[in-house]
């Protein structure tokens, strides 16, 4: 079974992003870029399936600028077998990204596609479900445990009420939540080895993907900053203040 994993290049999760003063977006120049944290978890899960003999090949896919090769190299260094870059300088929305994945699914015929539950830049959380819809296949979102059992998989999902386990027939789409696994650290020799692994490139035109009508961003603004208050010196001061505010 082939497993396709999504690797989105995003602003590193440790960066405090700055909104541009003209409201046109977020400043990304010179900012540290990384693999979307949920995608690292997706890659790790696919690699563990491979070591467990449940998968034969792990293919990392990124849709983005040429620089996204860096993130694909990280995926390869973690252990992915090969990578595909669908190169575009446009910022694509989830529906178009899902269409790209669908085109690659048609080419590669994977048994499983593992994506992150959300990209931490757009926080959209749509691509996995959209791919499942376009493919007419099952989806198991917010996965915290996956067991492949022959032609199907048992997936535990983190839902508002707690944990839910569902069974899905393969092929299918899974979206990774935080507690699915802890991604491995990449070691230097792996980075060297990864340099020899292939990255295939495509364009949207080659894949026959039409860009979906997009939401038009009109204005980006910083949220109203919370004013830090003050510190109290003692528990009784704290209680007095909360009483004062009518909170207790």
């Amino acid at each position, binding site marked *: 079974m082939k497993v396709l994993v999504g690797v989105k290049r995003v602003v590193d999760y440790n960066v405090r992003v700055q909104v541009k003063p003209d409201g046109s977006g977020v400043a990304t120049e010179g900012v540290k870029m990384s693999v979307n944290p949920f995608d690292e978890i997706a890659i790790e899960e696919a690699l563990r399936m491979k070591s467990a003999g449940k998968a034969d090949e792990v293919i990392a896919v990124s849709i983005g600028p040429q620089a996204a090769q860096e993130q694909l190299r990280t995926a390869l260094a973690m252990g992915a077998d090969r990578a595909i870059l669908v190169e575009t300088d446009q910022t694509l929305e989830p*529906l178009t990204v899902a269409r790209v994945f669908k085109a690659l699914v048609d080419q590669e015929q994977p048994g499983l596609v593992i994506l992150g539950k959300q990209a931490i830049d757009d926080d959209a959380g749509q691509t996995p479900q959209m791919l*499942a819809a376009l493919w007419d296949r099952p989806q198991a979102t917010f996965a915290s445990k996956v067991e492949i059992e022959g032609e199907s998989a048992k997936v535990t999902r983190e839902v508002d009420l707690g944990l839910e386990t569902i069974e899905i027939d393969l092929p299918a789409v899974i979206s990774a939540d*935080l507690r699915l696994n802890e991604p491995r650290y990449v070691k230097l020799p792996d980075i060297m080895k990864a340099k020899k692994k292939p990255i295939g490139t495509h364009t949207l035109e080659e894949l026959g993907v039409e860009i979906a009508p997009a939401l038009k961003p009109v204005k980006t603004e910083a949220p109203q900053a919370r004013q830090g208050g003050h510190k109290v010196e003692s528990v009784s001061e704290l209680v007095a203040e909360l009483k004062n505010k009518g*909170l207790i």
Partner: protein
Amino acid sequence: MAKVLVIGEQLNGALSAATPKVVACAQALNPESIDVALFGAGDLAGAAEAAAKFAGVGKVLTVSNPANEHPLAAVLAPQIEALISEGGYTHVLASSSTTGKDVLPRVAAKLGVTQVTDIMAVHGANSFTRPTYAGNALVTVEVPEGQIVLGTVRGASWQAAEEGGSGAVESRELGVELPSHTRFVSQETSKSDRPDLQTAPKVVSGGRGVGSEENFKVIFSLADKLGAAVGASRAAVDAGYVPNEMQVGQTGKIIAPELYVAVGISGAIQHLAGIKDAGTIVAINKDEEAPIFEIADVGLVGDLFEVLPALEKELS
């Protein structure tokens, strides 16, 4: 004029607390009509009646079917699509609950549109504000003219809808074929008599600083004293101190209580994303440099194992 379909949610026949907020967002569109759909396997009359009372609700459409006992996106999506095509809706709104987030993009893809995730504000029939970058950049987007709007509604940004309506309840049989490739197996929910984290006016949360599952009892004890719900940071959930449904933050629950008490939580941006709309934030942390103090309204530097018992004593 807008014709809105709200995807309601119910649990054991009772309307979920998220739905009135979705209706409030629908009301903000000044629509011609609001219909609410409810899916389930049993008797939906109670939930339907509650939904019919919101101002502006025209019809509550109940779809009772054994296949809808548990909300599976692949099973719900074709039913929602059927309701959309027969109702001619211009807007379809669901909660940013795990159910809403699971199902709505599946419907959106079938309709060939991108969804507006986590609607915080409505500026007109096709203009909305939504959070990106863990809430650190708010984007106002416009949905292309003439395109159906699908959106999930960020509960913490909305008050429950006003009542005062008297909608009709209609039960629907949808003759759509449902897939069998996705099957419910089991569910694990920890039972608790404490207030619900998502709607409670007071919340006490513990972080990694609490140190263990055993130690978390100091958090539960303070919460009980205050009549508060209990939350946690990701680190506390990852370490197994408490179950996942208690996580607050970017990828956990986004809440807006009047009082939020963060105990042994450092204040990472991903955690703060979940509490930006809280009324008063109290932080108790032994590290005076902890970032949580930068945003807390009231901070107390100290060891939680000394502060919490003293606090409880003062409260009694």
